Structures are given as structure tokens and as C-alpha cells.
């Protein structure tokens, strides 16, 4: 079994934290893993992505082939669309609905959301608002991870929760509890 995941967003939105948690869970589960990241110039507000490949078999390429991704997880709706050619026919897109407009020529928001919502397998949520409503403003990315957990199937929600606890442990119990709560919110909304 394999799971090829593209994590997308804008530099500084925290996609590497999501990647770290999935990576930690995969390692703990004894899966093979490759996780290509973007470091350097693009981290200054440019488009960033991480190719995350999990498999029960050894993995060769650090990069996912076009038409091979099982899941696109995006902190930003336009960034979700950027990687569509990498998705296979049954693949899912899980995205925040909140646009991050740091360019003057950002596309028409309505047209963008229409295109995204028209995909056959898509879950879109205002993760920032959901996080804020529950007084977890810093955990929007964990809401997104919770939403994605439904489509991850190579890892269980419980394995991801344990990983959140491990990764955030150095920041204290409250941070761990908040992030698990945000994860569960995302998971419940999709279930």
C-alpha cells in the first residue's frame, strides 16, 4: 500500500508542521517515507509544497509523478489547484477556503472557489474560522490535518494523534491538547 500526498500552501503557513506530524506517524508505524520540502527563497511568502510519500514498500523517487498523488492537502485554495495535474482520478483535495492574497493579480475569488468546488473529490473548509470559533487560532493547520485524516488510510487517526502529542510535547501540555482538539474538530467535520 502507498499514499502519495502533496502538501501545499504559502511560505510561513505551517505546512512543514503538517509534514512533520505525518512523517513522525509514518516512521513510528514502520512505513517507508520520503518527504521532499521547499527550503530557501520561496519560504519568503512564495508558493511552497512538500511531496510526502508513504509506503509499505521501498520508495525510489523523492518526487511524486503527475497523475499519481492520492491526496492534496492545502492551506490555501489557489495553491490546492496549482498541483491538480499531480492528482489521480480517485484522488482527494482537502483545502482551506481562505485565500491568502499577497500578489496583486490573485484570481477572481468566486471563479477560483467554483473551480475548486467542482472537483469530484474535494473537501473545503474555512479552517481559520473554525479554529478561531473554538479559541484555537494557532491550530488551523491541525484542523486541516484532521480533515485529511479521513483520506489517509495508511495511517489511523489515533496514530496521527499520538504523533501530534510527540511533536508538540516540548511546547507543553496545553499546546498538545489544543492541537489534538483542533485535529478532532477537523476529523469530526468530515465524518
Amino acid at each position, binding site marked *: 500500500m502507498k499514499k502519495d500526498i502533496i502538501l501545499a500552501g504559502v511560505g510561513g503557513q505551517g505546512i512543514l508542521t503538517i509534514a512533520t506530524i505525518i512523517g513522525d506517524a509514518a516512521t513510528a508505524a514502520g512505513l517507508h517515507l520520503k518527504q521532499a520540502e521547499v527550503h530557501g527563497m520561496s519560504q519568503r511568502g512564495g508558493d511552497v509544497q512538500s511531496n510526502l510519500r508513504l509506503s509499505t514498500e521501498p520508495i525510489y523517487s523523492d518526487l511524486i*509523478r*503527475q497523475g499519481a498523488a492520492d491526496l492534496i492537502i492545502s492551506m490555501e485554495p489557489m495553491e490546492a489547484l496549482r498541483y491538480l495535474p499531480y492528482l489521480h482520478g480517485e484522488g482527494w483535495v482537502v483545502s482551506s477556503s481562505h485565500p491568502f492574497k499577497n500578489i496583486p493579480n490573485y*484570481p477572481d475569488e468566486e471563479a477560483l472557489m467554483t473551480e475548486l468546488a467542482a472537483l469530484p473529490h474535494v473537501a473545503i473548509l474555512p479552517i481559520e474560522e473554525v479554529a478561531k470559533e473554538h479559541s484555537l487560532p494557532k491550530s488551523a493547520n491541525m484542523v486541516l490535518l484532521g480533515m485529511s485524516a479521513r483520506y489517509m488510510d495508511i495511517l489511523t487517526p489515533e496514530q496521527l494523534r499520538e504523533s501530534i502529542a510527540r511533536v508538540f510535547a516540548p511546547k507543553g501540555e496545553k499546546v498538545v491538547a489544543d492541537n489534538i482538539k483542533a485535529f478532532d474538530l477537523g476529523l469530526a467535520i468530515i465524518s
Partner: protein
Amino acid sequence: MMKLLLGDEAVALGAVHAGISGVYAYPGTPSTEITEYIQAHAPEVRSRWCTNEKTAMEAALGMSYAGKRSLVCMKHVGMNVAADAFVNSAITGVNGGLVVLAADDPSMHSSQNEQDSRFYGKFAMIPILEPSTQQEAYDMMPYAYALSEELKLPVLMRVVTRLAHSRAEIAVREPLRQNVLNPDNERTHWVLLPGNARRQYATLVEKQALLLSKSEESPYNSEFKIQNSKLGVLACGIAYNYVMENEPHKLGIPVLKVSQYPLPEATIKAFAAQCESLLIAEDGQPMVEEQVKALLGADYPVIGRLTGALPRMGELTPDNVGAALGVSVEHPYANAQNVMPRPPALCQGCGHRDVYDALNKVAAEYPDARIFGDIGCYTLGALPPFRAIDSCVDMGASITMAKGAADAGVHPAIAVIGDSTFTHSGMTGLLDAVNDKSRITVVISDNLTTAMTGGQDSAGTNKFEAICLGLGVEPEHVRVVVPLPKNMEEITRIIRDEIDYEGVSVIIPRRECMQTLKRKLRQNKTK
């Protein structure tokens, strides 16, 4: 034990476990995380950042001279800076093992070119190792140091961005102990007067046959055993993964993996004899393709980047390699309609923004003004909304290009350079300008860190006024300002004053990088 590591971290841990006593490096994407990992995890290894790649290379050679193992790391363009010391280290030879790690950036994700460091290894006539995986990068380190000490030559290890910045699980072994202090007594090896240098060079030339036999026997060069195929693939370093991702065995295509150079010529000839044609898959420039063409003769069909089978430029991907292998791919989704490019930008609140606002205000009053930029976050001042700089070439070129342009009659000629870039390669150019009394205005935009690569210490912090005065800039023309919107009137006035001065002036706008400031605030909060 298994560890999840970035390729860079696998290199770092491999070197630490190979018993290095020091790492010498200047930050540069995609090599930075190697030294950062050693700084964070190996206090027994000397690891402070160096001023530039040349000082790093020379210090590493000095440690090798003293009998200990050393690592020097840089991005590909850093090899140009280190080249004098690098090429000559092959002539002196080494004492303790010396590995030079060059991290190339095909597709120029964070670079101004995609030069292929393997050419430097061939040029210097030393062994080159090119790992295909993070595990291999880790495993190759003790092998590289043993090879270096056996051959008495530096070894070049070349990685690319996708290996450097991708994580994988690594099986880790027991660390080796560091070498003891044992300085070399063979002065004739190290004093490269022409008489000695000729002897040393002759020795290097003689060693080439041994280097070749090492490649033929290398555990990192291997092959599939398939007889008689229409097409065979020679896959170098990371390209091997992209080839294997396309399951060549299902297509009946044999693969020869090359991860150690000089090219194993006999192995390649034997492999080519099994096939009717060869595809050369290599990330970077078509170095191997050119050599294999020469090796196999004009009648043997060799395809690759030079023939259009693979793109002439840009990094390899499983997709473009698949296409070269004739694998057809279905991807149901075309490019989306509502997607625009999202280039990086200077952070909100960044001091460089205020510097460019001020420069643009003043430059608007001087239609002939030219602003020469440099390498760092502030290169983003070339993009909207600032569009403030007219050039960006290499580390330090802002000052010297401004000088040359001023010599030619350009006025005002303004240089914008960051603090770390200034100490890397700007100081010597400033001395030229002072000695020539060139009419230039140098802006050292000091954010107290090496920001673009993630906030490493900057070699000149708290020393810039003293450096400029020491180089001979007149004290009244070394001006320090705080780049904030509220100071705009003062800053623009000072820029105007200094443009009118008929000599070298230096303006230092100084305010801490927003990223390092935020990080400090976060750290204080968790404490």
C-alpha cells in the same frame, strides 16, 4: 537504529560518524542544513560559520594537514569562490581525510545558475561521489574519508536540492573516533613552488589509473544483469531514483547506476555492449553524456539532454525521465484555470523594505541613477512593488560593479549589499573603491543575520563601522540609520548628501531581521 533525516542531515551525521573534527561552511541553499545539524547535534565537532567558502575550504585543508578529518560544505556557486583553494588541494594532496560537499541546485530554486559541480571534481582530477539516496549519502561518508586518506586526495561529494531537502529514514551505525593530531612533515607536498608543484601534479596524473580502478570496483556503481536490450540506461546519482520509479525492469530496460567518478569506463563499455543504445540520465549538465559519447564512439547511439530525449536544462523528475523511457502517463487533471504564480517577497515589516522605499524616492530625482544589487533576501527588491535594483550577479558584485560603472561615468552609482554578503566578498571591493576614490554610495543593509538561508550568524555583526573605517572610508561618510518609515526624511536626506560626495560613502541602515526577531520573541515566551 532508524532516524528520519533530511538528505543534508544524513550527510552531516554521516560525516560526524566518520570521525570529522571540523566542518567549515558558509550558508547557502541547499547546503545550509548540513552545518546547522552538526552545530545542533555534535558539540565535539568545530562548526562555527565561516566568512566565505574560500576561507572554509582553506581552514578544512589546514585541519587535514594537521591529520584530522574535515568537511567543507557549500552550495554550487560557492565552489566558484572556493575554487582556488579547492583545485590546489588536489595538488598538495591531503593528510587527514577531506570531503568537499557541493550542493547543486538544478532548476535554480534558490540560485542564479545551475552549474554542475561534477565538472570541478573532474577539473581537479579527484574522485567524485554522487549519492542517489539519503541512506547512501550517510553510508558514503566513512567510505569517502577512507578513500581520501588512502588516495591522499580530497573527495568531492555532490548532492542536488531534491536529495538535500528530502527526508527519509536512515539506518545509523556506530560512530568512528576522531583522528589524533598528526601534522604532515612533507613540506615539498605543501609548498607549491613550481618545482614542487610539477612533482605533485605528476603524482596526481599518475594516480588517475588508481582512481579509475576504484570507480570500476566501487560498491556504489552497480548494474542490472539483463542481456541484449534495445535501450540501456546509465543513471547518475539521484537520476537513478527517477529511472527506478518508472520500473524499467518491467520494460526490459537494464540500468547501470553510477555514483562514483571518474566514470568506470570498462564497466560502461561492457554495459553498452549489451544494449543497442544508451540513455544518459543525470541531474545537472550533460557531463557524463559528453564523456560517454566520446568513450563509445560516434557510431554508438547515446541519447540524453544533448539530444532532446531529456530537457536540456532544469532538474530531472520522474515524469521527464519516464517520457525518455517511453512510459506513457495518464493524468486526468490538466492545469487549473485560476492559478497565478506566487513569487516570494520581502517580509512585512522588513527593514530592507524601508531601504528600498528610500532609495526609490531618491533615485526618482536622479534619472541616471543605477542601483547595483547583491545576493540575499534584498535581491527580492528587484520584484514589484519595488523594482529597485538594476543588477544581481554574484556575492559582492554590487560594490565592484558600481565602482566599474562609476569609473565609466555612471552617476549616481549605488550599491546595495547585505551585512553577511559584505563580509563574504564585499570588503575587498570596497578597498578597491577607496584606493581609487571612486564616486560610489554603498548601502550595507544590516539586519544582523544571514537571513535568506534561515538566520545564521553573520560574520561582521557589530564590526561594520570599524571595517569601513579600517578600509579607509572617511569617518564623516560612514552613516548609520534605522530603516523605519518614521525615519524616511532623515534617510533620504543622508542618501542625497552622500550621492553628492565625490568619493566612497557607506550608509548602514541597521535593524534586526523580522524572522530572527520573531523567533527570539517565541523562544523567550516558551522559556
